[in-house]
């Protein structure tokens, strides 16, 4: 079917500015992805899946500029013992990165996987992204598969002693970066992946994660404090039998963020938790879009998303639990809540369930409202100043999402960032 003219024009304009990297063995996957982009067209304002978020600046031929943000605050996770992989405006920086050697994992740049003949990587690059295109299209992810200029392939075969930490530095006001990472967690292996930093003025990131039976992957991410940056990220995760995937994202500031999580539970007894806490002030638009597919028996999924919004900030949540026929004994839970600190902010949500199996327990909830006056009154009557009381209640509101981080030290680091934000913004 031919694309509507507006979409066709926008897609062509964007593609005209892009050059497909000459990347040997990923070439075929990239060509396929480009074909998908041409067929789908890039997201447009009238697309149902972009009802609450305007994709214009994410798909425009040129990236809008974003001023650099300077802070004396040390970067998140800097006190942790970790293996650092640093990107500056979306380009791998060997000087700033650690040696990519760690017991239990093999780490390569995507461009190197061809010469090393790494089979698993060839079988993963673009594969989960392609699977994730139905039933809902995600053209920005296909665009990423086709044109990502850099990225890392991580093969986890054991239990590395420390987390692998991606650091995305933003150095140029006009940077427009695309990164594509792939991670394969072998049977029984376990790894923690950290990500932080704004990455670029406009950042399109795609991560494909394949977790084999009994594999475990923890993911904690923070998207940086730059006010003017824009980001569209996709995480495609496939889970095998008894495997575990737990992901948490902290978003503070950023004029536009769209984080998509596409999760497929394909082995029995698998567990997937995704959570997010976002705090926005003023010109801030944050969109969490989650799609969880249950395709095996006795799996558990949890989605916990909390948004604190003020001064005209907008929070969006689109979540879906799809339980396929035969995926009995599914335990699916989804909660999306917003705390609106003033009358100008808004929360837009579409929490969906699609269920084709009868022996399941799926529930979802979504609420929106102001700070609870009764609780506020209680704290004030105990002598807590209004500002502190509000911050206290706000942190308590966000706690359910932060609690999804298993590692206590990481959770504390996130909480201290939230406290910092609240003290600066109240």
């Amino acid at each position, binding site marked *: 079917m031919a694309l509507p003219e507006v979409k066709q024009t926008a897609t062509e304009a964007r593609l005209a500015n892009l050059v497909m990297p000459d990347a040997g063995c990923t070439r075929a996957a990239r060509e396929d992805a480009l074909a998908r982009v041409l067929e789908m067209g890039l997201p447009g304002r009238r697309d149902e899946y972009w009802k609450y978020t305007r994709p214009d600046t994410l798909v425009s031929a040129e990236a809008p500029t974003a001023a650099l943000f300077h802070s004396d605050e040390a970067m998140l996770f800097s006190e942790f013992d970790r293996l650092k992989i640093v990107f500056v405006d979306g380009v791998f920086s060997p000087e700033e990165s650690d040696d990519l050697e760690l017991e239990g994992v093999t780490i390569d740049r995507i461009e190197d996987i061809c010469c090393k003949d790494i089979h698993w990587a060839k079988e993963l690059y673009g594969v989960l992204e392609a699977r994730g295109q139905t039933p809902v299209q995600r053209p920005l992810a296909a665009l990423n598969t086709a044109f990502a200029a850099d990225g890392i392939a991580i093969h986890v075969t054991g239990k590395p002693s420390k987390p692998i930490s991606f650091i995305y530095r933003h150095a140029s006001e006009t940077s427009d970066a695309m990164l594509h990472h792939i991670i394969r967690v072998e049977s029984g292996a376990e790894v923690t992946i950290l990500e932080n930093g704004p990455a670029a003025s406009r950042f399109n990131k795609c991560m494909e994660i394949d977790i084999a039976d009994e594999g475990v992957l923890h993911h904690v991410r923070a998207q940086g404090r730059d006010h003017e940056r824009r980001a569209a990220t996709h995480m495609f995760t496939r889970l095998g039998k008894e495997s575990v995937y737990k992901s948490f994202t902290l978003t503070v500031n950023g004029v536009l963020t769209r984080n998509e999580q596409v999760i497929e539970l394909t082995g029995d007894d698998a567990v997937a938790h995704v959570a997010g806490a976002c705090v926005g002030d003023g010109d801030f638009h944050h969109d969490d879009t989650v799609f969880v597919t249950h395709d095996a028996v006795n799996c558990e999924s949890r989605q916990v998303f909390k948004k604190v919004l003020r001064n005209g900030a907008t929070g969006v949540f689109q979540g879906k639990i799809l339980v396929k026929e035969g995926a009995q004994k599914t335990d699916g839970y989804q909660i999306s809540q917003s705390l609106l600190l003033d009358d100008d902010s*808004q929360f837009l949500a579409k929490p*969906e*369930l699609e*269920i084709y199996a009868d022996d399941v327990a799926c529930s979802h909830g979504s609420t*929106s409202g102001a700070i609870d006056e009764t609780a506020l009154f209680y704290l004030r009557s105990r002598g807590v100043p209004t500002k502190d009381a509000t911050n206290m209640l706000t942190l308590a509101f966000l706690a359910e999402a932060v609690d999804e981080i298993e590692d206590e030290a990481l959770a504390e680091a996130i909480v201290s960032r939230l406290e910092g934000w609240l003290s600066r913004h109240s």
Partner: protein
Amino acid sequence: MAALDQTQVKEGVDQETVDAVREVGTYKYGWDTDIEMEYAPKGVNPDIVRLISEKNEEPEWMTEWRLAAFERWTQIEEPNWAMVNYPKIDFQDQYYYARPKSMEEKPKSLDEVDPKLLATYEKLGIPLKEQMILAGVEGAEDAPAEGRKVAVDAVFDSVSVGTTFQAELKKAGVIFCSISEAIREHPELVKKYLGSVVPVSDNFYATLNSAVFSDGSFVYIPPGVRCPMELSTYFRINAENTGQFERTLIIADKGSYVSYLEGCTAPQRDTAQLHAAVVEIIIEEDAEVKYSTVQNWFPGDENGKGGIYNFVTKRADCRGDRSKVMWTQVETGSAVTWKYPSCILRGEESQGEFYSIAITNNYQQADTGTKMVHLGKNTKSRIVSKGISAGKAQNTYRGLVSMHPKAKNSRNYTQCDSLLIGDKCGAHTVPYIEVKNNSSRVEHEATTSKVDDDQLFYCRQRGMDEEEAVALVVNGFCKDVLQALPMEFAMEAQQLVAISLEGSVG
């Protein structure tokens, strides 16, 4: 109902539920009336639109209104966002107007109506003679004569056959007649309100309806009047290959009250038939309207053959302060349902409520829900939706709750639960929630723990477990409405709400 017999029912779903759903599977209204009909030529075009207008003896402005709608309809596309699948409808391969030959000369009173038509309604349990007792309503025989009066407007294919109790209603100042009569007799009211809630270009089916609606009901309740009896419209599709397009317009003026009931059935046929209705309700200051539907169109046979495609646009506009509307629907019929009775809460402190039970079986598909658009301050809405899916059916709740920036201190509570019986069916929830101010509270829940806490507490105190208590509270509410239905299947509908909520999922 072979499908259900072979189904392994999961533990926790009680037999009463299964039996009640099975009962629904046998369609009792599948017979047809052998009556000579007069058809307009097949298909839809400006000539057909003019013909329908002419048959209804409409003034020029109405014909123009219809033609404008038709023009618009040719420019818009059929919506495809609902979770329903059906073969493409050939809009030119069906009749848009069919009326019994005997209705050519408008009967002056009910006594002159073709006995065959009267017999049809009698068989359906709809009394068109004012002295008749309503069939199927428990205890009706013992009730005082005043208490059991229900005025009925009976629509047979494209025309209204007759309206009962018109004289008595007139005494109270209430106008209750067919819409074709209202266009002739009360053009000022129709002109003022028609299309003011559901605009001509609202959506594909509403636009088609605006062009070709053939009849329907009209209600006007004057200021301060509490309608002395329940009003009801009964829709019957009889002719083959014929679409039914009816239009209902209800106006509740300041401080008035009316309870309106709607029922519908159709014969059992192999080919699917189209039904695209529009209902508009205008509610002024301090007025209240209750609108209840038992939708029992032919759902198709157990192999998914035939049935009615029910594409309906229903909307209430709470224009005045403290106005109130309540939609209650029991959806058991139709092969495909596409229906979202909505509330525009414009007046301050206005209230909208939506209570729905949708039951699908065999190959039925239902995509139904509501829209609560909060525009005024201190507005309140409540949504309680129960979807029950069996056989190979798909049941979707689709809804919107929107709090506009000016709708300060508003409140919404939504609860939608689904129950699946068997492992070949589906239940889906697609709520849209848009909150644009912070003094309003919106809660969307799928757990069964948040029905009225006081009532729950009372039941729990009497030793009921939570599931039982919730079922009792919700069913208790439904029963009030269902018992008032003047139709034989009120009994059947009552059985439906005996369905327990055990094993509910959100």
